[in-house]
């Protein structure tokens, strides 16, 4: 792993490697099951969860339908509060803006809050190319950074590492980046966390520039919100003199009141807590308290293209809680790296191909990285019908159709050459080679259907709409394959040998 997702193999091939990694799978299974059981309990405490979820989806949809209006409102409010707003059409532009802003300060080091947006644009690499060192300060991101690795989970990016590996990484690498690990560091989580505390504290105390994302931006007030646990976020948001926040344009919510919805939905869905330990909000700059300079970089990078697709648009509601990862039987087997982007799991399977366009085998295979069991939709706090979007994107891969790329509408042909079909076949072969994944998905689907008897599953809806057919029952991967390929799935049923 070399700190970039570029050149990742297509999903089935990457997943095939990770499913044979027993340590990775054991770590992941433990993690996902623990979080999802806790999450169910945290959600069950609120008897109005369904109403909160519907309101969360409605607010996000409203924002998306008038995104231009809310962005302009946000820009005006942030500016009035003493902040400076920059617009970035793509990753390269965002990196250029941030690099220039850091250069203006004369600093060569920055501290960073964990942020999906900055991973998406590859900011750390861009800064390094410009001679600026970016220190990740979230414990998991620190582990990933020191290990020259890639994040594999939205919430717990180093979930694929166990404590002994983390100790080895700290012992080996900390000294190259700053304060070395204490002598005789053991692999107890408390000692490892203490080592990270000591290592990072010297960075926090001297940092002049902080870089963050944001979970929410309030259009009417210009307020940004960051939700976290460790306090590293608070350090980066308050101690430096300059704060640069890179935020996707879809993160805006209309009103201050709307936070009452998301500050209930997010912690319970994400870390399964009633509330995460720390939430910081700031509106521009405040005299004598916190950074004197605040820059907001509004990032498009494929979001407007996603917005143009009325079915796929709902992916932009995502609040990055990671609940869908923890219930996904395919994610559990494949691991986060197989998705080839900072967005793994079910949300990655629909977001990455839309943000980047179906530009290669990975993007074309991602809509197949699912058993369509529907568990991701059931847990999603903003009710994104991920199966519906998956089926919609599969249709684009196989049949082509209208898409927007770089703001321009165009019609894609059915699958460049046979690439898509090959991608589909590889994905199918992989799924059928791992019967446990498939069985599990089907079991989950059956279970959730009993719980929600009136729900018409997403894929059924999508297909009935595009095919003018009456609504059909939940479609499993197997059924989809049979119908679109006109044949029964067949193939080897055992795990693939290592020599494959």
């Amino acid at each position, binding site marked *: 792993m070399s700190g970039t997702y570029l050149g990742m193999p297509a999903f089935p091939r990457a997943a095939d490697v990770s499913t044979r990694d027993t340590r990775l799978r054991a770590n992941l299974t433990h993690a996902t099951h623990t979080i999802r059981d806790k999450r169910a309990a945290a959600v069950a405490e609120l008897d109005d969860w369904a109403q909160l979820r519907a309101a969360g989806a409605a607010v996000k949809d409203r924002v998306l339908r008038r995104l231009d209006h809310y962005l302009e409102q946000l820009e005006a409010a942030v500016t009035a509060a003493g902040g400076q707003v920059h617009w970035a*059409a793509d990753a390269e532009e965002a990196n250029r803006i941030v690099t220039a802003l850091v250069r203006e300060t004369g600093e060569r080091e920055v501290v960073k809050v964990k942020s999906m947006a900055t991973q998406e644009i590859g900011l750390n690499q861009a800064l390094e190319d410009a001679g600026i060192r970016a220190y990740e300060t979230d414990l998991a991101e620190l582990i990933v950074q020191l290990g020259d690795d890639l994040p594999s989970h939205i919430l717990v990016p180093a979930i694929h590492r166990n404590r002994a590996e983390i100790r080895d990484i700290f012992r080996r690498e900390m000294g190259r980046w700053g304060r070395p690990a204490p002598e005789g560091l053991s692999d107890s989580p408390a000692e490892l966390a203490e080592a990270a505390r000591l290592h990072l504290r010297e960075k926090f105390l001297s940092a002049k520039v902080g870089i963050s994302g944001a979970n929410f931006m309030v259009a009417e007030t210009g307020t940004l919100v960051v939700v976290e646990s460790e306090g590293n976020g608070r350090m980066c948001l308050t101690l430096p003199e300059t704060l640069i926040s890179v935020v996707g344009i879809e993160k805006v919510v209309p009103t201050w*009141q709307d936070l009452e919805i998301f500050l209930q939905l997010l912690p319970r869905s994400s870390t399964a807590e009633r509330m995460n330990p720390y939430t910081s909000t700031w509106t521009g700059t405040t005299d004598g308290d916190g950074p004197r300079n605040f820059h907001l970089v509004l990032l498009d990078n494929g979001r407007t293209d996603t917005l*143009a697709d009325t079915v796929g648009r709902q992916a932009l509601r995502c609040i990055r809680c990671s609940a869908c990862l923890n219930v996904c039987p395919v994610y559990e087997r494949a691991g986060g790296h197989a998705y080839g982007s900072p967005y793994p799991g079910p949300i990655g399977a629909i977001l990455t191909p839309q943000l980047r366009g179906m530009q290669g085998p990975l993007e074309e295979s991602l809509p197949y990285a699912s058993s369509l069991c529907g568990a991701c939709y059931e847990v999603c706090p903003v009710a994104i019908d991920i199966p519906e979007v998956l089926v919609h994107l599969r249709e684009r891969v196989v049949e082509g159709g209208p898409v927007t790329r770089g703001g321009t509408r165009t019609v894609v042909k059915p699958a460049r050459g046979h690439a898509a079909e090959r991608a589909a076949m590889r994905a199918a072969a992989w799924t059928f080679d791992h019967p446990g994944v498939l069985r599990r998905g089907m079991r989950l689907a059956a279970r959730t259907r009993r719980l929600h008897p009136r729900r018409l599953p997403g894929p059924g809806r999508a297909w009935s709409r595009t095919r003018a057919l009456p609504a059909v029952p939940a479609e499993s991967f197997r059924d989809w394959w049979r119908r679109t390929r006109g044949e029964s799935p067949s193939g080897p049923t055992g795990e693939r040998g290592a020599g494959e």
Partner: protein
Amino acid sequence: MSSRDVVLGRVRRALAAEPRDTGRNEPPVVRDYRRVHGSRTAAQTVELLAENLADYRAVVHRSDPAGLPALIARLLADRGARSVVVPRGLPASWLEAALAASSGLTRIEDRAALTPAELDAVDSVVTGCAVAIAETGTLVLDAGPDQGRRRITLVPDHHVCVVRVPDQVVGSVPQALPRLAPDRPLTWISGPSATSDIELDRVEGVHGPRTLEVILLSASGQSG
């Protein structure tokens, strides 16, 4: 064309099919979720706050105005604190007992010139709060005169936060937001700093204070 125009232009093209007079035609967001979960008396709400604070490993104490200075003095002494940073607007009486001549405790007032390194050498911080949320066990600081700048409750390892009950306690997140001013920098605190990044084992105090002590201060509360 500026990137602002590029992005906004793309947004508008993507939304060309949407009705533009959405102010009138847009279905309103249905807010039929609860303002608060369950009905409680003010005392029960305070009780729930105490439970949820403790559940997230904050240490909860109760006091009344007469007992408060002695309690604060004891909490600081138990930690062996030699220095304490306080916001400018903290009632002077709160620290009287702690600063008694024999204690050897130094009081440091929050001021802009205080550097992060100086703060790092401070043992404890004592503040008030703006609002506390019972359902989630959350304290909200809004940088008011008795809370000070955001950094003073972050860098020292021991935070003592005084909540006036029942006045400063609300039941739920929806009840908290209207009492908070968005133009002030807010810090919502639910338990001490924590991480679960290593095999999901929870460890307290990664970067923020490792110990959070909350004093529920009532006009006539039993001290403890």
